[in-house]
C-alpha cells in the first residue's frame, strides 16, 4: 500500500509543469524608473528603466547598468515596448528609486503615482524624487563612486549613505499617503546632475496634484529641520563680522494650534536645539554664551517664519498642520471644512530656543 502512495506522490510531481519559476539567470532587475513627458503628442509618456547588469567583480570603472527608454500613450504601454527590447524577464522586486520628470510633476503626478502603487511587485519602500531637467538625464548619469549597479542614487536619496542637511528623503508609501490624506501635502527632493555627481539640495512642494513651488537650498535646510525630528544640519550666522557655525546635535519641535479666538487662529511652532560650535575664529570659551544663543535664535526665527508664510501663501501644508488639527479636535468630518477656512488666516508664532553645549576641541 505504501509503495502505491509513493508512486502516486511521484506522479503528482510529474504533472506539475516545471516552468512556473524563472531562474535568476533569466531575469533582469530594474533598479530605477523614470517617467517624463515626451515631445510626441500621440505618445505623451516617456518611460526610462535603469537595469542592473550582472558583473563578476565589483569595479567602479565598469559600466554595469543599461538604460532603455520608450514613448507610449500609457506607462504600461511603454513598459511593454521596453520588454520587447530585452531578452530577460523584467523584475521590479529591487526597484529602489522612482524619478518623476519636472515636466510631469508640473502637469499631474496622479497617473505615474497610481501605476507605481498599484503594482504589487514594486516595493512601497522605494524612494521618489523629482528629476531636473528630466528623469532620463538623471538616470543616464553614472557617478564615479558607484560600486553596485545603480545604488548611488539610492544611497543619497535614502540617507543610508551620506546624510545631507539639504536632501529631504521621500519614500513611495509616504508620497502616496500625502497625496491621499486630508491635511498634509506631498514634497519631493529635486535631483540635478552636475558632471558625474548628483546634486540634491532643493525640495519641491506639491499640492495633491502638481508642483507648487521649489524651495531654495537655504529654505530646504529649514524645511528639513522642521520636517524631521532628528538633526543633521548646521546653522550659519555672523557674529562680530566673523562667520559663526553651530552644528545641531539635538532637536525637538512641537506644533500646537490655538483656535480660542475665532478671528485669529494661532499656530505655535516651538523648536528647541542644542549644538556645538564648529567654526568661529575668535576665542569664545570665556565669554557669555547667551549672547550667541540669542543671536542664533533671532536669525533662525525669521527664517522659519518666512518659510511658513511662504507655504501658507501657496496654500500648501507639508508639515501636516491640518492633520494635527484633525487629530486634536473631536468633531469627525466637520474638522476638515473648518480647517480649510482656518489655515489661510492663521498667524504663526515661532519660538526658537538654542543652547550651546560646547565649543568643540579648542576654546
Amino acid at each position, binding site marked *: 500500500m505504501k509503495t502505491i502512495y509513493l508512486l502516486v506522490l511521484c506522479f503528482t510531481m510529474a504533472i506539475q509543469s516545471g516552468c*512556473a519559476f524563472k531562474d535568476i539567470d533569466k531575469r533582469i532587475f530594474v533598479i530605477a524608473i523614470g517617467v517624463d513627458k515626451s515631445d510626441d503628442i500621440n505618445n505623451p509618456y516617456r518611460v526610462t528603466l535603469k537595469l542592473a547588469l550582472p558583473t563578476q567583480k565589483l569595479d567602479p570603472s565598469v559600466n554595469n547598468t543599461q538604460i532603455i527608454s520608450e514613448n507610449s500613450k500609457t506607462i504600461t504601454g511603454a513598459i511593454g515596448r521596453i520588454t520587447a527590447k530585452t531578452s530577460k524577464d523584467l523584475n521590479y522586486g529591487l526597484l529602489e528609486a522612482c524619478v518623476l520628470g519636472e515636466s510631469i510633476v508640473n502637469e499631474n503626478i496622479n497617473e505615474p503615482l497610481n501605476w507605481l502603487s498599484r503594482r504589487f511587485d514594486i516595493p*512601497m519602500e522605494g524612494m521618489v524624487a523629482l528629476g531636473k531637467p528630466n528623469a532620463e538625464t538623471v538616470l543616464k548619469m553614472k557617478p564615479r563612486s558607484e560600486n553596485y549597479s545603480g545604488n548611488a542614487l539610492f544611497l543619497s536619496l535614502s540617507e543610508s549613505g551620506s546624510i545631507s542637511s539639504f536632501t529631504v528623503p521621500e519614500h513611495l*508609501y509616504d508620497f502616496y499617503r500625502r*497625496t*491621499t*490624506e*486630508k491635511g498634509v501635502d506631498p514634497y519631493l527632493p529635486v535631483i540635478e546632475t552636475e558632471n558625474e555627481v548628483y546634486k540634491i539640495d532643493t525640495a519641491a512642494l506639491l499640492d495633491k496634484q502638481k508642483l507648487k513651488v521649489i524651495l531654495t537650498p537655504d529654505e530646504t535646510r529649514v524645511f528639513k529641520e522642521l520636517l524631521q525630528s532628528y538633526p543633521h544640519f548646521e546653522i550659519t550666522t555672523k557674529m562680530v563680522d566673523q562667520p559663526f557655525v553651530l552644528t545641531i546635535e539635538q532637536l525637538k519641535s512641537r506644533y500646537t494650534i490655538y483656535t480660542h479666538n475665532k478671528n485669529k487662529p494661532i499656530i505655535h511652532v516651538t523648536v528647541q536645539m542644542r549644538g556645538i560650535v564648529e567654526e568661529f575664529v575668535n576665542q569664545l570659551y570665556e565669554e557669555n554664551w547667551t549672547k550667541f544663543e540669542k543671536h542664533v535664535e533671532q536669525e533662525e526665527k525669521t527664517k522659519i517664519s518666512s518659510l511658513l508664510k511662504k507655504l501658507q501663501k501657496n496654500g500648501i501644508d507639508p508639515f501636516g498642520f491640518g492633520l494635527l488639527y484633525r487629530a486634536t*479636535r473631536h468633531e*469627525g468630518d466637520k*474638522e476638515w471644512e473648518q480647517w480649510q477656512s482656518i489655515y489661510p488666516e492663521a498667524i504663526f508664532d515661532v519660538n526658537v530656543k538654542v543652547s550651546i553645549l560646547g565649543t568643540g576641541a579648542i576654546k
Partner: protein
Amino acid sequence: MNRYVFYVLWCDGITISGLLLYNLLLDERFSGSIMAIVISALSGMIFLVTITKSLGHFPKQGLPEILRMFLPAGARVSLLIFFSIMTITKGCIMIGYASSFFNLYLIDVKTITIIAFMFITVSWGATRSSKTILSTLELVLFICIPIMYYILTKAVFSQGIEWNSIKAMADYAFTWPKWETIAAANSVFSGFVGLIIFNRVVPSKIKWKFIPLLLIVNLHILVTGLLISIGIHGTYGVGNYIAPTYSALDSIGIMSGLFSRTIMPYFLIILFLLLIYAAVTIHVGLELLKGCFSMKFQTNPRKEQLLSWIICGLFTVITMIYFNTFTLKQIKYHTVNWFELRFYTEFLMVALIALFAVMKWKRRV
C-alpha cells in the same frame, strides 16, 4: 491552566486577524470598527467562559459524546454534520484567502497550485491524532510568535508611522458598528471551537487570571496591525489598498540578513501559522463528522483514515473550484455573510453545551 488550551485559542486569534480581519475592519474604519472590536471582545469572553465552565462537567468527552448522551440519533447527526461543515469551511476559506494573497505578490505561481499544495500538507496534518496536532501547534507557535512580534515592533517604532493619522481616527471610536462588523471581529475569539474536541485529550479548564491574558494577546495583534496600516497609509489612503497591512509591512525596511522586503518573512510566518491553524480546524471538523458514525466504525483505524482523506479531498476540490470561479471581490462579500452565519453557529454550540452541562448537574443533584 493547561497550556495547550491557550495555544489553540492564541493560534486562532493571530491567524484570523493576520489574514482576513485587517482588510474587513479597515474598510469599516469610519463606521465603527473600533467599537466592533470592543463589543466582540466582550461577547467572545462570555462565549469562552461559558464553554470552558460547561466542558468542565464533561471530562475526557468531546461534543459527539456529549450529544450522544442527550439527543436522539437524527438530531445528533444533523447537528454534527452542520457543525463540522462550518468548521471545515473556516479552514478552507483561510487557505483560499492566503493562496490568493500570496499569488498577488508571487505572480509566477497560480492560486490553484498553491491551494493544492497547502491542502496536501494540511490534510496530512489534520488526519493525525489530536495529541500530535497539539504538540506540533506548540512547536510552530514557538517559532513564529517571536518573529511576528519582531516585525510588528519594528513597524510600530519605524519612522514611517504618522501618529497624527492614528489620533485622528479616535473621533470615530464611538460610532455604533454594523452587525456584520461585530460578527467578523468576533472571529478573533472563535478558537474555543477547537476545545469541544480537544477536551478529550486535555482538560479545557482556564484559571481566571488567564482570561485577561488571552484578551490581551489576541487583541494586541489585531489592534497593532490596524494601527500600523492606518499610520503608514493615512486615514483615507488605507482604504485604497487591497491588502493594507501587507502593503504597510512592505513599506518598512528591516534590513535583516537575507530579507530586504519585510513582507517576505511575514508571509513565511503567516504560511506556518496558516498551515497549523488549518490543520487544527479541519481536524476538529473531521472528528465532529466521525462522531456521526457508530462506535464500531470509529474504532476501525483503516476506515476512519479513509473517510478523513475522502472528506479532505472533497473540500480541496470545492475550494479550488470556488476560488477559481469567483473574484476576490465577490469572495470578500461572501465571507462577510459567512462570518455572520459562523457567529450564530458558535452561539448555538455554546448554548447547547451550556444547556447539557446544566442538565447533567441537575441530574446528579
